[in-house]
């Protein structure tokens, strides 16, 4: 009886792996759901429209790029990586941002950051963050139009689903509304301005957008992201190293200042629960492709993200620095990997 088939298949091991790329990405998508739900609850249906738009653009662009590159389309579309990129991007932009923001963002993400480097697994920079930084730098006005979270008086004015659709596609608010009336500075904006004007933290925090320990609404959204992230760690889709390194470093780095002078330095929790830090720690910085592979490398990567985020938040020109920090660390990841190789069995260090 003969068993000769493709020579390739003769090598061990003879058990195929059980895990697949698609399964991993699908679990990440599932883990994002609670956070998305919370965001929709606090900021309205605009979030869902942005997600739908971005996913649509991302998948069509991915399809086009795969065709151009001559790669198997069905296979690579079913790995869901483009969908994750699109959702992460959509969660970072204001809910009523015009439709072309996601188009431009997705071109930057899928075409430039991903497929110019050869597609899945070969990109150097996190595509979602490239997209966000591109639109943030190019369209600062549109990107600062954040809405008030549910629970504030202004939030009563928020447009419904149809009106949101209309706003996103026309770029104009319904006649009875104006941007000034409904847009609201994020807690991090206020904090930054306040500290620059030498106001007391307790004074700044009196603004209604602040919640119990972070921004109102934001803190709950962060909790739900963390929930999904912890599930991912439990499922071993991501390792604990990067999220723990980021959050622990933020606490350790901000604790001394707060202990020294609580009146002019915000409590460490404030840093964690406002802005995109939790989302970044669990879902963005943990992108395996653009991160580090070894355990020590991951810890260093996390520390770097935390350090750079705080640097930009405290002294830089932007209120939040997670996206920049992740991109900067992406840039250093190959170098970190190079110098944090684990010790091989029986070899000296």
């Amino acid at each position, binding site marked *: 009886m003969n068993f000769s088939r493709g020579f390739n298949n003769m090598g061990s091991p003879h058990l195929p792996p059980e895990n697949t790329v698609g399964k991993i990405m699908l679990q990440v998508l599932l883990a994002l759901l609670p956070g998305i739900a919370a965001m929709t609850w606090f900021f309205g249906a605009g979030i869902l429209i942005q997600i739908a738009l971005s996913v649509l653009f991302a998948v069509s662009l991915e399809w086009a790029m795969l065709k*151009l*590159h001559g790669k198997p389309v069905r296979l690579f579309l079913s790995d869901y990586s483009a969908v994750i990129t699109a959702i992460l991007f959509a969660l970072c932009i204001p809910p009523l941002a015009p439709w072309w923001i996601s188009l431009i963002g997705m071109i930057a993400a899928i075409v*430039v*950051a991903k*497929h*110019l*480097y*050869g*597609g899945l697994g*070969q990109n*150097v*920079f996190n595509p979602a963050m*490239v997209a966000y*930084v*591109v639109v943030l*730098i190019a369209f600062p006005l549109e990107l600062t139009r954040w809405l008030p979270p549910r629970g504030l008086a202004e939030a009563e004015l928020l447009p419904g689903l149809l009106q949101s659709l209309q706003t996103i596609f026309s770029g104009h608010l319904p006649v009875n509304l104006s941007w000034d009336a409904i847009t609201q500075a994020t807690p991090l904006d206020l904090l930054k301005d306040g500290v620059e004007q030498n106001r007391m933290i307790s004074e700044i925090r009196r603004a209604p957008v602040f919640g119990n320990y972070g921004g109102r609404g934001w803190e709950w959204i962060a909790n739900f992201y963390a929930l999904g992230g912890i599930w991912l760690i439990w499922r071993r889709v991501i390792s604990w190293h990067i999220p723990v390194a980021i959050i622990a470093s933020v606490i350790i780095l901000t604790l001394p200042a707060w202990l020294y002078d609580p009146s002019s330095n915000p409590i460490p929790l404030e840093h964690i629960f406002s802005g995109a830090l939790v989302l970044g720690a669990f879902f963005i910085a943990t992108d395996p492709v653009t991160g580090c592979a070894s355990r020590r490398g991951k810890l260093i990567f996390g520390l770097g993200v935390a350090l*750079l985020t705080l*640097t*930009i938040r405290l*002294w*830089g*020109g*932007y209120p939040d*620095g997670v*996206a*920049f*920090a992740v*991109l*900067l660390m*992406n*840039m*250093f990841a*190959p*170098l970190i*990997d*190079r110098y944090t190789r684990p010790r091989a069995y029986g070899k000296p260090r």
Partner: protein
Amino acid sequence: MSEYLLILVSTVLANNFVLVRFLGLCPFMGVSNKVEGAIGMAIATAFVLTLSSASSYLVYTWLLVPFDLTYLSTLSFILVIAVMVQLTEMIMHKTSPLLYRVLGIFLPLITTNCAVLGVALLNVQEHHNLLQSALYGFGAATGFGLVLVAFAAVREKVAMADVPVHFKGAAIGLVTAGLMSLAFMGFSGLANL
């Protein structure tokens, strides 16, 4: 003290000579194929930049200003830089012939690295003293070296990626440099001098 720290932070991050001011792009693209070469280039540039910015300061304040010859500053700075580069080249040829070989044409090209002349001229423009000038040069070189080495590591990775044919090599290198520059935009507003 904080002033010196600010000079460092500014030159390394916020006003990084390569990614924010777009100076010194020639060696940045040329000597970033291998991390080892990049490290060598970074060290050589640091050496040249620190020395040349200090010595061009000396030439400026002690020769050009007293004799009222400041209009010759560009010319004499180039002279100083050329000498420094020659010196570095000789020392490197002696101590590390292979690195000398790897850096190849780019070593003498430090002379024309616009970052080097840029630093010397900016020192004059910003009225730095000797220590500040040297620090400014050193900071610029550190920023240059930091991104050069990181860029080299990235390019080593990209070299093994399945990049579309038309973008292989320098093209994808420039795209990468652009994205790195984008990331460095995050430092804008940091340490405004």
